[in-house]
């Protein structure tokens, strides 16, 4: 049996930069292969060389060969591929919002894709059939709607339907679950698995999301800096990684480290707390909260944009020294809540030290007490300012320090978030995402806040960089009496950064309580669903419950122990199919 896809020792350069070195992979019918790697690992380039899309980014294959269905297509032009590979290869591109035509109705987009492969016109029945195949109900209103009217999950399904229109034997999916909520992600991955079994489809899934790869693929290829560093059965590789890079990557998953421990972060990257690697987070000696402690409080908060009510009856209170996690899926109102707590959005029901926020932008003595860290590391910095200038400006303006004192303080703050030397003189464009996020944190700290609100602080970052930021926030909250509110869709990140968790769904708080209780004994069905969407978290919970982990034990051993847990429930069932 010839392989459906056979990539052998492919080397790709773009200009003078080598982006792929000796990449090989093969795939048979009905099999799913995952390509796992971080930003810049070459996974998308691998996909592009298979799909023949290297030319658009100026890349070319220097050596090696790519066979699809036994046919050598290494150097075949895109034009001739259109003829020879239609009905053989299809691709689901990244980003369902930007990849669908925003002005065309769903029905006509699907029928256009169907017409490419058949002689006559695609009938309505064909369109309905195609949408049925991706488990969408082809109602008249769906066919008439435009992409922006659909949810992210539905758009992704439409994209898959378009890719399947030519009845391909090989489907390439680039980051198919990125930007989708946990529950939607699960259903999309299930759809891939079902389609694969139904149609004996060969499937290549590219992702940086280890959980997605674990649940939808049989074999995995781990890439780093344009090379394949490890390959094997998904369950084996993830449970027992051999290559140091894979080990690092998997151990950086926040759910694989028990609560109360620093995440194992790569020392070489930009983590300053080399000593913090994998160690136990010291429990800070916090004084009991007294009357003088800074507090932000929302009482019976309702909030609407226009006539659409976003938040219903929310009551939360955070004091300096406390850590609160707000978890929920997109549209649950958690970011709105974060902005209300910071005073960016106005509400009389939110008070800081007993006084409500004034109109945003007007001066207020409590203004500096609460600071905000935003999701997009690049957009949250002023692009024309260097890291030092950014922090120095905050020290000068907020703390009214003199120029030299502000510079000194800024350097100290940047040092405390792990930026020193040449890095402080760089502009955002010359810094990595993680480094930018550190500058944001340093700038927020310059105001000497009592409470730090972080809105999805790690969602835009790679796994290993995320671990560094989580560690940094852990260190900061233990070193000073800082209150922390972390808003995230990722329960695993929240579990490390909070003592109390609030679970939000559609603008309401559905569950709240101490982190351990919410995580390990979830009561509300929605919380249960969130917890169960993450197999490692559950495993972690169990090990905690059964007392396998004793506080003070060596963290690295703990992580190994966790690695051996039978966690790949989904991967197992997928490979059986």
């Amino acid at each position, binding site marked *: 049996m010839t392989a459906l896809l056979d990539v052998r020792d492919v080397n790709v350069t*773009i200009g003078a930069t080598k982006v792929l070195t000796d990449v090989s992979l093969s795939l048979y019918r009905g099999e799913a292969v995952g390509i796992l790697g971080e930003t810049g690992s070459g996974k998308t380039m691998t996909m592009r060389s298979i799909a023949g899309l290297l030319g658009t980014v100026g890349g070319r294959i220097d050596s090696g060969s790519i066979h699809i269905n036994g046919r050598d297509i290494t150097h075949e032009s895109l034009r001739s591929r259109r003829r020879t590979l239609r009905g053989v290869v299809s691709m689901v591109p990244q980003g369902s919002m930007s990849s669908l035509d925003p002005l065309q109705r769903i029905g006509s987009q699907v029928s256009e894709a169907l017409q490419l492969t058949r002689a006559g016109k695609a009938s309505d029945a064909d369109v309905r059939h195609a949408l049925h195949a991706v488990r969408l109900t082809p109602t008249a209103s769906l066919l008439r709607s435009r992409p922006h009217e659909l949810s992210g999950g539905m758009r992704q399904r439409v994209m898959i339907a378009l890719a399947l229109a030519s009845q391909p034997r090989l489907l390439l999916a680039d980051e198919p679950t990125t930007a989708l909520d946990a529950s939607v992600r699960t259903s999309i991955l299930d759809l891939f698995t079902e389609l694969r079994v139904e149609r004996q489809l060969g499937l290549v899934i590219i992702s940086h999301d280890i959980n997605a790869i674990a649940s939808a693929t049989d074999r995995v290829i781990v890439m780093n800096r344009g090379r394949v560093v490890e390959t094997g059965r998904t369950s084996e590789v993830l449970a027992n990684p051999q290559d140091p890079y894979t080990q690092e990557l998997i151990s950086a998953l926040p759910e694989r480290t028990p609560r109360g421990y620093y995440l194992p972060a790569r020392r070489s990257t930009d983590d300053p707390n080399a000593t913090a690697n994998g160690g136990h987070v010291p429990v800070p000696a916090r004084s009991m909260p007294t009357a003088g402690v800074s507090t932000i409080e929302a009482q019976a908060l309702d909030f609407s944009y226009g006539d659409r009510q976003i938040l219903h009856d929310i009551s939360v209170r955070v004091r300096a020294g406390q850590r609160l996690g707000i978890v929920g899926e997109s549209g649950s109102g958690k970011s709105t809540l974060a902005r209300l707590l910071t005073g960016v959005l106005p509400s009389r029901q939110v008070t800081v030290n007993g006084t409500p926020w004034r109109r945003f932008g007007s001066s207020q003595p409590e203004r500096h007490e609460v600071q905000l860290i*935003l999701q997009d590391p690049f957009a949250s910095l002023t692009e024309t300012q260097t890291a030092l200038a950014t922090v120095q400006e905050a020290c000068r*303006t907020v703390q009214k320090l003199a120029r030299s004192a502000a510079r000194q303080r800024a350097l100290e703050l940047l040092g405390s978030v792990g930026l020193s030397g040449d890095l402080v003189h760089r502009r955002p464009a010359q810094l990595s995402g993680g480094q930018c996020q550190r500058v944001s944190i340093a700038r927020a700290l310059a105001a000497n806040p009592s409470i730090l609100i972080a809105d999805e602080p790690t969602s835009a970052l790679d796994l290993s960089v995320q671990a560094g930021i989580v560690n940094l926030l852990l260190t900061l909250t233990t070193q000073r009496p800082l209150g922390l509110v972390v808003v995230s869709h990722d329960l695993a990140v929240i579990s490390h950064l909070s003592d109390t968790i609030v679970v939000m769904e559609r603008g309401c708080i559905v569950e709240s309580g101490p982190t351990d209780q919410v995580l390990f004994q979830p009561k509300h069905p929605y919380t249960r669903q969130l917890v169960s969407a993450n197999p490692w978290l559950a495993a972690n919970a169990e090990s905690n419950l059964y007392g396998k982990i004793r506080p003070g034990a060596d963290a690295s051993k703990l992580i190994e122990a966790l690695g051996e847990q039978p966690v790949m429930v989904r991967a197992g069932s997928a490979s059986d199919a």
Partner: protein
Amino acid sequence: MTDIVGPSIPAGTPQAATARRGHTVYLRVERLVGLVIEAALALAFIIVPVASPISSSDITSLPLAPPSAEHLFGTDQLGRDIFVRTFEAGRIDLGLILVSIAAAAVGGALLGLFAAYLPPIGRMVISRVTDATMAFPYIVLVIGLAAALGNRELISGLPRGAAAISIAVVIACWPPYTRLTLSRALVLRERDSIIAARVLGYGPMRILFSHIGPALVPTVVSYAATQAVATTALVGSLAFLGVGIAPPTPELGQMMAENIALLPVAWWPSIIPGVVVLILGVGFALMADSTSERNTR
């Protein structure tokens, strides 16, 4: 490491990244050529009239003498040396263009920046005023202004009529800058960095001038270079309408207008100033192209 090969480009690697780099180099060269043209002309405009033994209004030779070693560009119908006249005229034209465009750009941009922080009503008023100004036929505006201000010497030291042209150009050219900065500033105002700055309690002036303003400079400069091309032509063409700088002060458009009727007899008095206008325009156009390309990419 094979990941990153050094910055030198090995022989025989064409393709897009190299092509892109080539493109950037090309843009840099383009900008450099534009700058060199403008700088060389500006220098010549300043030096030549000063260094020359004869003045631009001296009648030194026979009328309409063709270019020769004595009179490099020949003489005009009154026997004045065109070489000296051209460079003196160039100084006036270039100075006029630069000053008026700079005033229009800075003024327009500041107005746009402030407008972004005004309440919606104030913003609307400013937008409507820009719209009205843009809709007004500006040749009519220039003629009207020139008539109103007359050929008086408004500012001592400047040739008569120059102030009127300059004011007219500023009035005609500021609205696009206001629109440009207003729309960009409104977008930038919603950026996360501005939210973070406001959470820190920064005042509106600080946010405008150190967080939004700097990001707009390239756009404004690139637009100003584009507009300089149009203004070069505008200043040159005003003389044809009879509202230019008053004689005997030389001005490129006026030199062309005066001698255009003699074109069949003598080409040099009208063509040479025209070529100088062309070179000025090309210089600005090269600079404009290279900056705007960099912005859109």
